[in-house]
């Protein structure tokens, strides 16, 4: 077995008196799709926030690609190769779709953002990369649309595109399919499935048929703890999982 790209060891997160995550451990293998499932309030997004640095854990240790990142800032983790999409769409609404992606690509070149004496459009390599991302997220004909005017499904796709622009080693996708129409779900599922060849994927998703279909490994959470972790076929039949989660929806 290769070394995990991400190791989280005994992560604790508290909100006041509420223990959102207690002693949570997780490891993600490179080149795999690893899904996190569990009922609402299980702490999935909290775990994402802790792992990506948006919320510092009160206890535990996070190692990413050989770097100890437990206390590292969000932007530094991005440069190590983490990148995320958001559950609640968080885009630059007043800017165009292409400009959103351009900003995301530009962020990877640490010095480019400090250049103040010329236009951003001189960088043809960045523009080509934006074009490729537009195509990959099915947004090419929406490139000049103001992002706030994009359909919900389009915004969800752009969320994924923004995260991909960082060329991450591990991408965190928080409910990428939520609220998408059936066609978009199908296309986006194919896109996520194809990412495996380039990066590891940590996925929060409620669409069980998709999760069971594309994941290499599934971790089931409830009330801030891990209750099971296995390959999809085993998770499907795990009695504890059925009671805690699948039972309520099946």
């Amino acid at each position, binding site marked *: 077995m290769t070394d995990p790209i991400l190791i989280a060891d005994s992560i604790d997160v508290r909100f006041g008196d509420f223990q959102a995550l207690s002693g949570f451990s997780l490891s993600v293998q490179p080149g795999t799709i690893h899904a996190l499932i569990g009922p609402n309030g299980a702490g999935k997004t909290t775990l994402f926030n802790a792992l990506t640095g948006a919320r510092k854990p009160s206890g535990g240790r996070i190692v990413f690609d050989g770097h100890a990142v437990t206390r590292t800032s969000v932007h530094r983790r991005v440069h190590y190769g983490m990148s995320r999409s958001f559950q609640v769409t968080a*885009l630059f609404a007043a*800017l165009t779709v292409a400009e959103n992606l351009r900003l995301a690509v530009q*962020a990877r070149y640490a010095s480019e953002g400090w*250049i*103040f004496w010329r236009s951003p459009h001189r960088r043809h390599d960045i523009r080509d990369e934006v074009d490729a991302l537009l195509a990959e997220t099915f947004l090419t004909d929406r490139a000049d649309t103001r992002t706030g005017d994009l359909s919900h499904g389009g915004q969800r796709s752009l969320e994924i595109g923004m995260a991909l622009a960082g060329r991450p080693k591990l991408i965190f996708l928080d409910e990428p399919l939520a609220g998408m129409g059936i066609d978009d779900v199908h296309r986006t599922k194919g896109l996520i499935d194809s990412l495996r060849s380039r990066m590891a994927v940590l996925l929060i998703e409620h669409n069980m048929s998709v999760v069971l279909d594309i994941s290499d490994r599934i971790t089931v959470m409830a009330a801030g703890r891990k209750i099971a972790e296995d390959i999809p076929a085993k998770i499907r039949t795990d009695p504890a999982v059925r009671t805690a989660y699948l039972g309520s929806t099946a």
Partner: protein
Amino acid sequence: MHATERFPNLATAIVLAALVVLPFTVPATLASQIAIFATGALSVVLLLGAVGLLSFGQGLYLGVGAYVCGILVRDAGIGLIPALLVASLSGAVLAGLLGSVIVRRHGVYFVMLTLAFAQMGYFVVLAFKSVTGGENGLSGLPRQFDILGLSIADPLSMYGFMAGAFFLVFLLVQRVIASPFGSVLAAIRENEPRSEALGYPVARYKTAAVALAGGIAGLAGGLHVIFLGFVPPSDIELEMSQRLLVIALIGGIGSPGGALIGSAFYTIVSEALSEIWPRWMALIALLLIGLVLFLPGGLWSAGRRISALFERKIAHD
């Protein structure tokens, strides 16, 4: 979006034309003041328009630039240009230092910190009376300067210098807004946590913008004392911060061209009204209320709306 950000553009031509026409429409001394306060207002346009940071304290950096420039040309005997550069640099360094602390707070706390530091500046000036002249300010500055063999003594040559300085800063601000750096500032304005999540060190970018704006305000302060021939303590009072903010809002923060229109409007109106009615500020306040309610983009956006109407008409014909 891209069309309006192109550089140099129509706005550049309009601003240049306005600068040329200005001394033939109003007295040259008034025109100089317009150019000086327009320069100061550019620092507000940069912060509020490009990054979305509301600073109530740009007067502090203008005041620091004023005192530094005043002391340098009076006591150190260095030339006009080096004195202005050092004045600008002092504004930038101070703003960078304070900014690195202030930018870590958001919203109303950010505003309160800018206000508190600005207020502190005034009391520092009063406390160090031997250096700053206290409430009397600094007088005895030279009234004549030479740059590259050209003499600056009469009101018109003075205006030429002030207008040139404003135009350079205007070009700089325009250039910065339409650069990769400016695009990051716009991203921070639109969605700060997302910018951080993309990998931009947001606090560092905001500090850089605050320092740049401080440098611009510092330069405006230097220009003001060169024009006046003395350093008035009012340059570092809270009222100066307020004036720069009001000018920027009247002109419109969406474009650096707004600073010039706002300054022209404010300076001319205050000059005309202060002679007939000492409470003229009340009218400025009323005007500001009207603008906020009916023309949030400021006077500059009125021009843009009219030109849009005009273009539509041409398209119809």
